[in-house]
């Protein structure tokens, strides 16, 4: 077995270089994928997801009982949030924050909608959603519900995790879910992800930028 140490130095060095170059190119490409989809080169303060999530598309029912699709929000910038009306803390807090964003936007909020999609369709009827969502912001917020399958498929589409926790003796239960807010531009393209840690000012700033860049 004399041959197993006999690497030809030139051959394997070139091979390492070639492999590293390939990995490096892949890295640059994936970075470029994120970079070239935005015309303004200053980085977003929220998480930029342009080109990585599918366009807004679903078949659900709104809080007045009317069927809606992704197309229904054409021409409107949408902030999509997944929650449920029995939610103890995160959902009301997020809705309150989004309400403040709407206030800060002022006239720009005219074509902006907060879309609250329930992850608890068993308890969240259209009427319950209507009372809940409109209490926060009757002008801009809309609640959506649908069959278990329809909710699951839109959650899957945007990689939202949610699941029913154990029932307590009275039959009540919590639904754990993602707290992210998905921002879509007026063409229905997914643009940004806002999280709990992003301030109201930050969300307003980037949201205004999405509105301005899509209109022009």
């Amino acid at each position, binding site marked *: *077995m004399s*041959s*197993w*140490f006999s*690497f030809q130095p030139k*051959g*394997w060095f070139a*091979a*390492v270089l*070639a*492999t*590293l170059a390939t*990995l490096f190119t*892949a*890295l640059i490409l*994936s*970075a470029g*994928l*994120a970079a070239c989809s935005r015309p303004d080169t200053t980085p977003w303060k929220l*998480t930029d*997801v342009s*080109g*990585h*999530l*599918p366009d807004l598309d679903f078949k659900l029912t709104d809080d007045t009982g009317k069927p809606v699709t992704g197309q229904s929000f054409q021409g409107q910038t949408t902030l999509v949030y997944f929650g449920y009306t029995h939610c103890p803390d995160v959902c009301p807090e997020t809705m309150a924050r989004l309400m403040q964003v709407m206030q800060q936007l002022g006239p720009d909020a005219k074509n902006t909608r907060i879309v609250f999609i329930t992850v608890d369709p068993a308890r969240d009827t259209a009427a319950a959603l209507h009372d809940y969502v409109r209490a926060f912001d009757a002008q801009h917020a809309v609640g959506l519900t649908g069959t278990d399958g329809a909710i699951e498929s839109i959650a*899957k589409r945007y*990689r*939202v*995790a*949610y*699941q029913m*926790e154990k029932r307590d003796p009275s039959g009540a239960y919590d639904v*754990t*879910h*993602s*707290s*992210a807010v998905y921002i879509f531009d007026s063409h229905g393209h997914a643009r940004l*992800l806002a*999280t709990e840690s992003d301030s109201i000012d930050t969300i307003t700033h980037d949201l205004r930028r999405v509105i301005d860049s899509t209109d022009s």
Partner: protein
Amino acid sequence: MSSILYWLDPWEPSPTVVIAVLIAAVLFARGAKRAHVSLARHVSFWFGLTALYVALHTRLDYFFEHEFFMHRLQHLVLHHLGPFFIALSYPGAALRAGIPFTWRQRWLKPALNTAAARILFKVIFNPVVAVVLFVGLIYFWLLSPIHFKAMLDWRLYRIMNWSMVIDGLLFWWLVLDSRPAPPARLAPGRRILIVIAAIPPQIMLGAYIFFTPHELYPIYSICGRAFTWISPMRDQQIGGLLLWIPGSMMSVIGALIAMRHWLRLSTRQRLVQQRARAELVTA
């Protein structure tokens, strides 16, 4: 029964997975009869193929997408366990025999003999390329920004999983080859060398993830975790450990098997030489 069906229901249906697994299964089943495959090799092949299918195309995918350590478990199966057992069954001859004779004559042989195919094999089966690819892919998909996009974008997610499967098959096929070289691509000693070279980088990355005191992969917190009773830091630590210990353990087992092949081959070579010498003496 219905609960099994519930779990077998693919979370994200992919025809590619079904077709690829079916083709491999049909070719092996057809060819195994002619290629005299032992029972142990049968078990090894079907176990590996089933493991790959379960890791790619069941409801478990929900947990793989929404829990970091479950994601690491998935990659352990896709990159190590599944390809390891498929390579261990040494299915090349059976798969080849499974292809109808005329197809082999008309398509497979000419395709393998083209210059492009030969250069490709020369590059991907180079021992250094094999190690760098094996370790590089683990590192690449675990870079924070890359991981974020891969878990969000379904196209990147599929590319990531397939790249792990294909690279796993290439690597373990090189390492677990039991023949002398040639016809094997690598000399028996080099097989041990490449599998051992892949251990320290895996330990390093696993330990780095385990000991990092902040969240490296916020995507799971943003999109929501499947197991809400495990804290984000604990999730990350278990994920790091899975890369650190079982990941490198698989390499150790691979090295031991390669070592056994080497010992067997060198004993046989010595016997052949002794016999040749004995014949010379009697002559």
